[in-house]
C-alpha cells in the first residue's frame, strides 16, 4: 500500500505527460486526469488512517505519526489545489498545461516519497525530486522574470540539497560503529542505537542537515529565493510550495532533530533552531512592512511561519506539539491566501498593491477570503494558527525563555501591522478609476472559489476543535520530537 | 435632628438677602459713601415679584425652568449643612458630595439658560462661569478632604458637628488654612470682588450678572434670592469650620450662626473696598491659590 502512495502519482505524471496535443479536449481530459489521481491519493491516505500500513522494502518505507501528518497535509492541500487548477487552466494554460499537470503530479509523488521514507537518504532523494518537480512549475510563464526566479531557486536549492546530502553522509559515518545489526541510515535503528552514535559526526551531521533543509524551508539567511519564486510562480504553485514543500522540508529537519534528541544532543540542537526561528521572524517582519507586491508579501509571511515552526521545534516541551499543529494550520492558511491572491491576480492581471483596490466591491468572494486569510495568518483566535502560536508561546514561557517570548510577540505584532496595512488597503480602498485591464469576471467562478472556501472552513474548524484521532497523532509526533502534549 | 435644625434653617433663609446688603453697605462706608440701604435686596425681590415678564423669542422652556432649578438646588444644599452646629436637616455618609453637586446642577441650568438666549454676551458669561467654577470645585473638595482627615467624619454633620471641636486643638493651623481657603471659594462662588464685581454695568466685564441679563420679573427675583442664599451657604460652612458650636445650647448656637454670617458679610465688604477686581487671566491663579492652601492643610494633616 505504501508503494501505491508513491507509484500512483508517478504513473499519473507520466500519463499526463504522454498525452500530446493542446486542443481544448486534451486540456479538459488532462485536468480530469489530474483531479482523478488527486482524489485516488486522498482515498489512499484515508485508508492509511484506517489501518496503518506495515513497513515495507526492508524497513526503508514506513508510516509513523509525523509522516502521516505531513502526508495528510500534502495530500489534502494537493486535492484542493487541483480543484482550483480546474478553473485556473481554463484561463491560463500556456502550451496546453501538459508540463504543468505532469509536474504537479510528480511533486505529489516525491512529497509522498518524502513523508513515508524512513531511510534518510531515500528521504533526501525525495526532497531532491520535489525540487526538480517544482522547477518547471515556477518557469510556467516562460517570461524573463520567471526565468530569473527559477534560476535562483535552482542554484540555491541545489546547493542546499547538496549540503543536506553531505549531512546525511556524516550521519552514516556516525552510525558506522553502531554494530552490524543496524541497517544504515534507517530511522528506527538510528533512534534505537542513538546512544552509540559518534557525537562529533552526529553534531556535524545535524549542522549540515540544518543548513541544507533550512534552505529548502526558507529560514532567515537562506530565505532569499522565496520572495522571487513565490512572486513569479503562478499562485497555485505558490500555495503548493508554501504548504507542501515547507512541510516536507520541516519533516527532513524534524527527522534530524528526532535522531539528535534520541542521542541526547538536545542542548546542542535547540539553540541554533531557536536562533534561526527568531531571525526568520525578524527578517520577515522587516520585509513585510512597506511591501508593495501581494505575492511577495505572502512569501515573507511564509518565511515568518517557517521561523515559527523551527522556533517551536527548538523550544521543546509543548512547543513540539505546537509546531506539528502549526504545520497543518500553515498549509491550510497559506493555501487559502495564495489561492485567493491567485484569483485576484487572474482578475486584475497585476499583483502590485498600488494598482489593486476595491476588491470588496469588485471581487467580493476574493475580498472576504483575503480578510479571513489575514486574520487567520496573523494568529487571531477563532482560527487555527492562534491555537498553535499560543501553544508555542506557552512553550517559550514554560521553558523560562521570557526574552524569547517577548521578542516573538513583538515581531508577530509588527508583521501583523505590515500585513493589515496592505491587505486592508487593497480590500477597502476604492478601485482606481482607470483600471487598465478591465476586471475579468471569470475568477469568481465556482471552481476557483471552492478551493479557498474549503481551506477557510478547515482553518476555522481547526481553531475551534481538534478531532480526537488527530489529537492522538499530534501527541505521538510531539513525543517523538522530544516534546510533550499540552 | 433636634428642633434647632429647622429653626436654624429658617433663620438662614431669612437672613440670606441681608448679607449682600451688609457687604455693599460696608464697602460704601469704607469708601466714604452712604451706599444703598442694608435691606435693599428685600425691596428689589419684592418689587420684581410684582413686575411683568419679558421672554426673548429664541428662548425655550429651559430658560423658564432655570430660575426654579437654581433656587430649588440652593434650598436642598442648605438642608445638608449642620446649621445649628449639631445636626443638619438631612445627613448621610457622603452628603458633602450631594451639597457640591446640587450647587453644580444649579450652575449648569443657569449657564444653559444663559446660552438659550443666543446672545454672545451671555455666551461669554457662561464660558467664564464654568471656567472659574472648574477651579473652585477642587478647592472645595480639598477642604472637605482636610476636614475628613481631621475629624474622621464622612458627612457634613460628622465633620462640622461635635468631633470638630475636639479636632481644633490638635489641627489648629490646618483648620485655619481650610477656613481661609473656604473664604476664597466663597468670594468666587458668590461672585464678589476679586473674581467678579456685582456693581459693574459694562456687560463685557461681568461674569455672573451677564448670564442672568435676560431674566425679568419673578424669574430675576428668584435668581437674586438664590445667589444671596449661595453666599449664605458658604458663609454658614465657613462659620461651621471656624466656630465649632456643638456644645452651645440650641438658641445660642443659632444666634452665633446669625452673628457669624454678618461678620462674614462685613469681611466681604472689607475685601471689596480694599482691592479692585483681578484681570480675568489672573483669576485662575487666585483660585489655584485657594486649592494650594487647602492641599497644604491636607498634607499637614497627613503628616501628623
Amino acid at each position: 500500500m505504501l508503494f501505491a502512495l508513491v507509484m500512483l502519482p508517478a504513473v499519473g505524471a507520466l500519463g499526463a505527460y504522454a498525452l500530446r496535443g493542446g486542443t481544448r479536449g486534451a486540456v479538459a481530459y488532462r485536468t480530469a486526469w489530474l483531479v482523478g489521481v488527486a482524489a485516488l491519493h486522498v482515498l489512499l491516505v484515508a485508508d492509511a488512517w484506517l489501518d496503518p500500513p506495515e513497513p515495507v522494502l526492508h524497513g526503508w518505507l514506513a508510516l509513523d505519526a509525523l509522516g502521516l501528518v505531513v502526508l495528510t497535509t500534502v495530500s489534502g492541500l494537493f486535492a484542493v489545489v487541483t480543484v482550483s487548477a480546474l478553473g485556473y487552466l481554463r484561463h491560463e494554460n500556456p502550451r496546453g498545461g501538459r508540463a504543468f499537470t505532469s509536474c504537479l503530479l510528480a511533486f505529489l509523488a516525491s512529497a509522498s516519497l518524502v513523508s513515508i521514507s524512513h531511510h534518510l537518504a531515500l528521504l533526501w532523494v525525495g526532497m531532491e525530486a520535489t525540487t526538480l518537480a517544482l522547477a518547471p512549475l515556477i518557469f510556467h510563464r516562460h517570461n524573463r522574470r520567471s526565468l530569473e526566479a527559477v534560476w535562483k531557486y535552482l542554484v540555491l536549492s541545489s546547493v542546499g540539497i547538496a549540503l543536506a546530502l553531505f549531512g546525511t553522509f556524516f550521519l552514516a559515518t556516525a552510525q558506522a560503529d553502531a554494530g552490524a545489526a543496524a541497517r544504515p541510515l534507517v530511522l528506527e535503528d538510528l533512534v534505537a542505537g542513538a546512544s552509540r552514535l559518534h557525537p562529533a559526526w552526529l553534531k556535524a551531521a545535524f549542522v549540515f542537515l540544518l543548513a541544507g533543509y533550512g534552505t529548502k524551508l526558507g529560514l532567515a539567511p537562506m530565505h532569499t529565493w522565496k520572495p522571487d519564486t513565490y512572486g513569479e510562480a503562478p499562485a497555485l504553485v505558490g500555495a503548493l510550495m508554501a504548504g507542501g514543500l515547507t512541510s516536507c522540508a520541516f519533516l527532513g529537519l524534524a527527522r534530524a532533530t528526532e535522531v539528535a534528541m534520541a542521542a541526547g544532543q538536545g542542548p546542542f540542537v535547540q539553540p541554533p533552531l531557536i536562533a534561526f526561528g527568531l531571525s526568520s521572524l525578524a527578517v520577515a517582519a522587516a520585509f513585510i512592512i512597506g511591501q508593495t507586491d501581494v505575492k511577495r508579501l505572502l512569501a515573507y509571511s511564509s518565511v515568518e511561519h517557517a521561523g515559527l515552526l523551527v522556533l517551536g521545534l527548538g523550544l521543546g516541551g509543548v512547543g513540539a506539539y505546537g509546531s506539528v499543529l502549526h504545520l497543518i494550520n500553515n498549509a491550510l492558511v497559506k493555501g487559502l491566501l495564495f489561492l485567493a491572491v491567485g484569483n485576484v491576480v487572474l482578475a486584475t492581471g497585476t499583483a502590485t498593491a498600488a494598482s489593486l483596490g476595491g476588491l470588496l466591491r469588485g471581487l467580493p468572494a476574493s475580498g472576504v477570503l483575503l480578510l479571513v486569510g489575514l486574520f487567520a495568518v496573523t494568529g487571531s483566535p477563532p482560527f487555527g494558527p492562534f491555537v498553535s502560536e499560543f501553544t508555542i508561546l506557552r512553550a517559550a514561557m514554560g521553558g523560562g525563555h521570557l526574552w524569547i517570548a517577548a521578542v516573538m510577540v513583538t515581531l508577530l505584532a509588527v508583521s501583523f501591522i505590515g500585513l493589515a496595512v496592505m491587505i486592508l488597503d487593497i480590500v477597502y480602498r476604492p478601485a482606481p478609476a482607470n483600471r487598465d485591464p478591465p476586471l475579468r469576471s471569470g475568477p469568481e467562478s465556482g471552481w476557483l472559489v471552492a478551493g479557498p472556501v474549503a481551506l477557510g472552513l478547515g482553518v476555522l474548524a481547526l481553531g475551534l476543535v481538534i478531532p480526537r484521532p488527530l489529537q492522538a497523532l499530534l501527541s505521538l509526533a510531539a513525543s517523538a520530537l522530544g516534546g510533550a502534549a499540552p | 435632628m433636634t428642633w434647632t435644625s429647622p429653626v436654624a434653617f429658617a433663620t438662614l433663609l431669612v437672613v440670606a438677602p441681608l448679607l449682600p446688603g451688609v457687604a455693599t453697605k460696608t464697602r460704601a462706608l469704607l469708601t466714604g459713601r452712604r451706599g444703598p440701604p442694608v435691606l435693599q435686596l428685600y425691596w428689589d425681590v419684592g418689587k420684581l415679584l410684582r413686575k411683568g415678564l419679558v421672554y426673548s423669542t429664541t428662548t425655550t422652556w429651559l430658560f423658564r425652568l432655570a430660575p426654579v432649578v437654581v433656587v430649588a438646588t440652593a434650598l436642598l444644599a442648605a438642608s445638608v449643612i449642620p446649621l445649628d452646629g449639631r445636626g443638619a436637616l438631612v445627613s448621610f455618609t457622603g452628603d458633602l458630595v450631594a451639597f457640591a453637586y446640587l450647587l453644580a446642577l444649579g450652575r449648569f441650568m443657569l449657564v444653559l439658560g444663559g446660552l438659550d438666549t443666543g446672545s454672545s454676551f451671555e455666551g461669554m458669561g457662561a464660558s467664564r462661569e464654568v471656567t472659574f467654577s472648574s477651579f473652585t470645585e477642587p478647592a472645595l473638595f480639598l477642604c472637605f478632604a482636610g476636614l475628613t482627615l481631621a475629624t474622621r467624619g464622612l458627612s457634613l454633620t460628622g465633620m462640622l458637628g461635635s468631633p470638630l471641636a475636639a479636632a481644633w486643638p490638635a489641627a489648629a493651623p490646618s483648620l485655619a488654612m481650610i477656613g481661609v481657603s473656604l473664604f476664597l471659594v466663597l468670594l468666587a462662588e458668590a461672585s464678589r470682588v476679586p473674581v467678579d464685581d456685582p456693581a459693574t454695568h459694562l456687560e463685557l466685564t461681568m461674569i455672573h450678572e451677564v448670564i442672568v441679563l435676560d431674566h425679568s420679573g419673578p424669574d430675576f427675583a428668584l435668581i437674586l434670592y438664590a445667589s444671596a442664599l449661595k453666599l449664605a451657604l458658604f458663609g454658614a460652612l465657613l462659620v461651621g469650620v471656624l466656630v465649632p458650636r456643638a456644645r452651645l445650647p440650641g438658641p445660642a448656637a443659632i444666634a452665633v450662626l446669625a452673628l457669624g454670617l454678618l461678620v462674614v458679610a462685613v469681611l466681604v465688604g472689607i475685601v471689596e473696598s480694599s482691592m479692585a477686581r483681578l484681570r480675568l487671566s489672573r483669576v485662575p491663579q487666585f483660585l489655584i491659590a485657594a486649592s494650594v492652601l487647602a492641599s497644604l492643610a491636607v498634607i499637614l494633616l497627613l503628616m501628623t
Partner: protein
Amino acid sequence: MTFFFVGIALILAGGLAAALFRRQPALADRAFGVLVAGGCALGLVPAVGALAGRDVAGILFAMPMPGGPWAFGIDGLSAFFLLIVFGVGLASAIYGLAYLAVEREGGHRPVATSHLLMAVVLAALALVVTSRAVVPFLMAWESMAVLAYFLVVFESEKAGVRRAGLVYLIATHTGTLALFAMFAFWGRFAETLSFDALAAGAASLPAGGALVLWLALVGFGLKAGLVPLHFWLPEAHASAPSHVSAIMSGVVIKMGIYGLLRVVSLLGAPPAWWGWLVLIGGVLSGVLGVVWALAQHDLKRLLAYHSVENIGIILLGLGVGALGVSYHLPVVAALGFAGAILHTLNHALFKSLLFLGAGAVYRATGTRAIDRLGGLARRMPLTWVAFLVGSVAIVGLPPLNGFVSEWVVYQALLRSGAAAGGALRLAVLGVAGLALIGALALACFAKVDGIVFLGHPRSAEAGQAREVGKVMLGPMFALALACGVIGLVPVLVVQPAVTAGALVAGLAPDAIGAAGAEVLEAMAWIAFLSLALVALLALGWRAAAALRRRRSPVPGETWGCGYAEPTPRMQYTASSFATPLLASFGPVAGVRELRHGDAFETHPTELILDNVALPLWSLIQGFAARLRPIQQGRLWIYLVYLMAALLLLLLYLATSGGTISP
C-alpha cells in the same frame, strides 16, 4: 445557563435573518429586531438571577484542544456586565435598524452584513463576560475586537474612516498579543488554563504577579482607553456609524475594565504600587480626557474623549479598590470596586444615549461640526430632552445615575482618607481629582448643549433640521428612563454592585456589614433628595406657569446691549467657549492655533497619536528600510548569505566542544 445560550442562539439567528432576507428590508428589520430583543431578554434572565444572589451553575465543555476544557459561568461580576451587554447592546441594535435604513437607498452600503456583524458582536461580548477559561476568553475577545473593526469601517470609501479603522485594529491586536503573553506566562504556574486553576496558581507568581499585572494593564488598558493607550479611541468612535460608536463606547471598551477586574479578582492581593499606578492613571485619563474633549469641534470626537474621561473615573475607583485590597481595608476595597462597576454600567447607559443623540443630530442635519449647528432644541425637542438627560447624567449631577456612581467612588476615596493610618490616606487627594473632572465635564457639556441645541441655528442645515423617527427615539428614551430610574431608586443597583465589588475584592458578600448598612441608608437619603428635587421643580414650574398665565409675558428681542443687527455667527462657538479654560491648561490641551491674514482658527490635535504612536511607527519603518538591501537581486550575494550561515553553524559546532572526543 441554558437560558443564556438559548439567548445567544436567538441573537445569532436574528443576525442571520437580517442577512438572509436582505432582499425584503422591512421583513429583515422586523425579524432582526424581534429575535435580538428575545435573545437579549432570555440572556438577561440568568444575569438578573445571579444579581439577586442565586448562584448560576457553570457549564464545562471538555474540548480536545490544547489548553484544557472550555468553562462558562455567571457570577456577580459577569452578571453586572451582562446587564450592560444586553441592555445597551439591544438599544443600539434597534436604533441601528432605523439609522441604517436610510443608507439602504444609497444601494452600495453593506447594511445587511452590518446587522449580522452587530448580532455576532453582541454574542461575542456576552461570551467574553461569561467565559471561565483562557482559550474561550481569548476567542471571544478577539472576535469581538475584529468584528468591531468591520462595523467601524462601514463607510469605507472615506480615507479618514479607513485610517481610523486601521489604527483601531492595530491597537486592539497589539493589546490582544499582550494578553496572549500574559496568559501564557500565567499558564506556566497553573495546571490547566481555566480561571480557577490560574487563581490557584497566582500565589506562586514571581514578584507578586508584577509581569502579569503590567501585561494586563497594557492589554486591557489599550482596549479600555487608559490615557497613553487611548490614541485609537476618538478616531474610531468618530468615524463609526453612531449606533456602532454607542455600542463601542458603551460596551466594547468596558471589556477592558472587565478584564482588569477579573485579573484582580483572580490574582488575590495585587501589590500596592499597581493600585497607585491605576489610581494616578485614572486621574490622568479623567482630567486629560475631558480637557481634550473641550478642545474638540466634532460632536462625536468630543463624546469619544468623554469615554476616555469616564474610563478615568472608573479606573480611579478600581485603583482605590486595589489599594483597599493591598492595604487590607475590606470596606474601601469593596466600595472602590463597586464604584468602578456601577460607573461602568451608568456610563454604558448615558454614553450610548449621547451617541444615539449625536446620531439623530447627524441624521437630521448631515453634519457633526458643532460650530455649524445651533437652535436644534426648538426643531428637535424630543432629541433635545434625551440629550439633556444624557448630559446631566454624564456630568454626574444629582437626580440621575451618574451622581450615584460618582458618589460611590467618592465614598471609597473618603473612607480611605478616614482610615486608621498608613499611606492609603493619601488616596483622599483623589477627591480633588474627581472634583476637577466633574467640573470640567460640566463645562464641556454646557458647551455642547448650549452651542448645539440652544441659541440661533448657525447654518442652513441646522436651520431646517427635523425630528427623527420613532424607532430612533424609542431606544434613546429607554436609556434615558434607565438613567432616571437608577438615579431615583439607587438601592436597586448599588446593592448588587457592592456584592460584585466584594466578590472582586475576594471578600464574603456581607463582609463589609456596618459600612454596607451606612451606604444603603445613604442610598435611601439620596433617593429622598432626588425625589425632593423633582417635587420642588414640579411645584416651582406650576407656580411659575400660573404666574405666567396671569401676567401674559411680552415676547421681546434678546438684550443685545443696543447692537442693531445681531447675526447667528456672532454667537459663542465651540472654540471660543473653551478657549479660556484650555488656555490655562497650556500645551497639554493640544490645540493648534492658525492665524493667517485676518482669519483665526483652532484645530484640536491628538497628542499621543501624533507625537508618540506615528513617530514610533516611522522609526520601525526606517529600521526595516535599512534591512532592504539584503534582497538586492544578485545571486552571488544570496550564496554568500548561505555560506555565512554555514560558517556560523560550523563555528557553533567547534565552540560546542568535544568534537575530538569519541
